């Protein structure tokens, strides 16, 4: 299929998916994923072959990942982030450890390799903050102690997810290097992260802002400059053995502290959310292969089970340890169940690096869709009591 036809199909699926999601009061991302999966498989069934999109569409999806992470970094208000309580950190950490271990064990049990099991465990770690935010708002819990706990934990989860994903990609890339080369990699990675951290310091961003104020740019040029910085960070991250996404994420955090780039978040939301990011979600939905999924039905069910139990136990235990009552702890555990963020990037990278196959990717996609679907009504029922 040629490029224009491919992009037309993908964008039409994205728009229809968003429309359906809104009608059914579901997160927009879910519609894009599910419709992408359906159309992908209909094409497969009707033609007797895959619905083959122009390869450039997948490059656009890659840029979508970068823009997604750049936007996430831009939206990370460091002042607010520092206010997140220790209890959120406990819930986040336990809510990451439990599903990771359970996912790893389940994968080993089903005979997958060590590195594939690590990838599968990692796919269960992050929480999608947006899925339950609407429910927390509706039940007027978002401003309460429990609401802050859940939102804070989900944000920390996302960051842990990005870091773990980066480590995994680095391990895959540098797995066969010598100790000396690995030491150089760790040193460079630390230097890069430290440098990015330094750029977010108030004094440094103040100095940068003073110099940047002398630069006269139009709005479009500002957007181009923001994208250049993100790509530059990504390129450096990639070249020192980290992943592109950590580069884009760090660039977002750095740029987000600068007054000069005020407005960049909105421009990114338009260009990213209106084109590149939906292409990523739809194409990742299209990787779902119904036949492959059926062949690994047992594993898919086990993955879904450990995804739910891991978060419920980990998040719930974390809340209980930080002195929330039983009812609130269960609520916190359930609120951490949905996955619809980092794990999707992980699926794409896993497939690209050959760590996971279509069967595992399909099982992860079903886990993402199911956890996103079931969590809000259960959470509403628990918290309404």
């Amino acid at each position, binding site marked *: 299929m040629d490029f224009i036809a491919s992009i037309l199909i993908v964008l039409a699926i994205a728009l229809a998916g*968003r429309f359906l*999601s809104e009608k059914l009061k579901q*997160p*927009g*991302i879910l519609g894009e994923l599910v419709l992408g999966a359906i159309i992908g498989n209909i094409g497969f069934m009707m033609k007797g072959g895959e619905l083959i999109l122009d390869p450039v569409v997948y490059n656009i999806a890659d840029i979508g990942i970068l823009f*997604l992470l750049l*936007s*996430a*970094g*831009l*939206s*990370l*208000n460091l*002042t*607010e*982030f520092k206010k997140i309580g220790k209890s959120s950190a406990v819930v986040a950490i336990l809510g990451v450890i439990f599903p990771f271990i359970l996912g790893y064990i389940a994968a080993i049990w089903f005979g997958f390799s060590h590195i594939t099991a690590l990838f599968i465990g990692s796919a269960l770690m992050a929480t*999608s*903050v*947006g899925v339950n*935010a*609407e429910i927390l*708002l509706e039940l*007027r819990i*978002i*401003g309460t102690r429990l609401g802050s706990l859940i*939102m804070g934990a989900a*944000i920390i989860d*996302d960051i842990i997810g990005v870091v773990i994903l980066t480590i995994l990609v680095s391990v895959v890339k540098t797995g066969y290097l010598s100790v000396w080369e690995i030491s150089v990699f760790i040193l460079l990675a630390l230097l890069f992260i430290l440098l990015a951290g330094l750029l977010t310091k108030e004094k440094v961003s103040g100095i940068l802002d003073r110099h940047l104020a002398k630069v*006269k*740019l*139009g*709005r479009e040029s*500002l957007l181009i400059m923001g994208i250049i910085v993100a790509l530059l960070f990504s390129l450096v991250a990639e070249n020192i053995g980290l992943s592109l996404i950590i580069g884009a994420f760090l660039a*977002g955090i750095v740029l987000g502290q*600068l*007054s000069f780039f*005020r*407005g960049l978040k909105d421009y990114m*939301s338009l260009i990213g*959310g209106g084109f590149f*990011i939906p292409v990523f979600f739809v194409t990742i939905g299209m990787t779902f292969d119904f036949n492959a999924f059926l062949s690994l039905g047992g594993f898919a069910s086990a993955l879904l089970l450990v995804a739910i139990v891991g978060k419920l136990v980990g998040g719930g235990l974390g809340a209980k340890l930080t002195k929330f009552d039983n009812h609130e702890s269960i609520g916190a555990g359930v609120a951490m169940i949905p996955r619809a*963020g980092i794990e999707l990037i992980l699926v794409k990278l896993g497939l690209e690096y050959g760590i996971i196959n279509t069967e595992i990717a399909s099982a992860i996609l079903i886990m993402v869709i199911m956890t996103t679907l079931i969590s809000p009504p259960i959470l509403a029922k628990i918290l309404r009591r």
Partner: protein
Amino acid sequence: MAREDRLVPEFYELRVEQLMDKRAWDLPILEKKDDVSHILSILGARNHIWVVNNKEDKELIGVITEHDVLLILTPKKFPSYVFGMPDIRSIQHGTAKTAEEVMHRKVISCKSDDKIVDVLNKMTLYKLRRLPVLEDKKIIGELTLHQLIRKYYDATQYHSII
């Protein structure tokens, strides 16, 4: 037309201090810990509020505009993709209680010796209608689009441009 040809470059070359509102005592200013009711009370009559650490040293740390209040007054709705940190500020849900929680932290400012042409460019780039005038991080006045328009119009009516 010839007069305007000459006026515009002259206008561009003027300095902020020549046009700014220097009545610092009359500026809409709140301290970061002030309650949201103060914000609503001021914005009922003004378009913006400058937020300072405290009213003694007047160190500017943020700005609240009508748009910020619109965001916390409107029923909260999240965008299609919430990835990262969502904006949960809302009066309805009690997540926006103080000026510090409502304000925009990235303030675009100018200095008293900046040229008017630079101020106009900043206003265009960031879609702003007012800029605080700062001196060592302290607010000493403000320059609004209204003031700029009025001064320019007066000059076209054969008044002095300053």
